[in-house]
């Protein structure tokens, strides 16, 4: 299953709920303001680090760059482009968007 999160973890609890309800082996793609969840140094870093062993976590590169965050992505998070976004959707049988 692919989970997509587009909200900042510092403004909404979408990413927190996603990490709580995603089962091991799932993929989580962070897009738009969701990419702030993939960044080093903030208070959400611990929660994401704790989820990393069980989940495959991706962040959309263009959204990181737009926000000036491309150079501080957490180790273990894979950065994908729009083509990678399409591949993730195609590879997974279902998808949950945490609006």
């Amino acid at each position, binding site marked *: 299953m692919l989970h997509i999160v587009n909200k900042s973890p510092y403004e909404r609890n979408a990413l927190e709920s996603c990490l709580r309800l995603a089962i091991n082996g799932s993929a989580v793609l962070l897009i738009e303001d969701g990419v*702030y969840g993939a960044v080093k140094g903030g208070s959400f870093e611990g929660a994401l680090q704790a989820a990393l062993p069980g989940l495959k976590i991706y962040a959309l590169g263009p959204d990181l*760059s737009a926000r000036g*965050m491309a150079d501080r992505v957490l180790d273990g998070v894979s950065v994908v482009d729009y083509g990678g976004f399409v591949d993730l959707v195609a590879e997974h049988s279902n998808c949950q968007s945490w609006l």
Partner: protein
Amino acid sequence: MSDQEMDMEEGGVVKQFMFVNRKAPYGTIYALEGLEVVLISAAFEQDVSMAFIDDGVYELKKGQDTKALGQKNFSPTYRALEGYDIEKLYVEKESMAVRGLTVEDFAVDVTVLDHAEMAAKMAEQDVLISF
């Protein structure tokens, strides 16, 4: 004639306006709209300041590059505010800390206020406008 009417004759009453920015850029339209209203307000010769709280601190992050996004990068506009006599940019310390940001991460010079100082600054305004 009241004091206020006297002031009007001398070119209008000057009020303290604070624009309160609490949204990250690009994900929603609030940050860009807020910035445009701030620029418009410069034409009215008021005492204008901007506050950056919560995800609003992300608006000031250095190194924004929106080429791949196909949206306008409006972050250079914050550097132009000085030219419109908008020089009071206040950032809440706690909002920076929780997001792992320091003043070195910002594209403009700001005044960092802790929450108590920010609260006092907000309380002394005549008008607060939220984005």
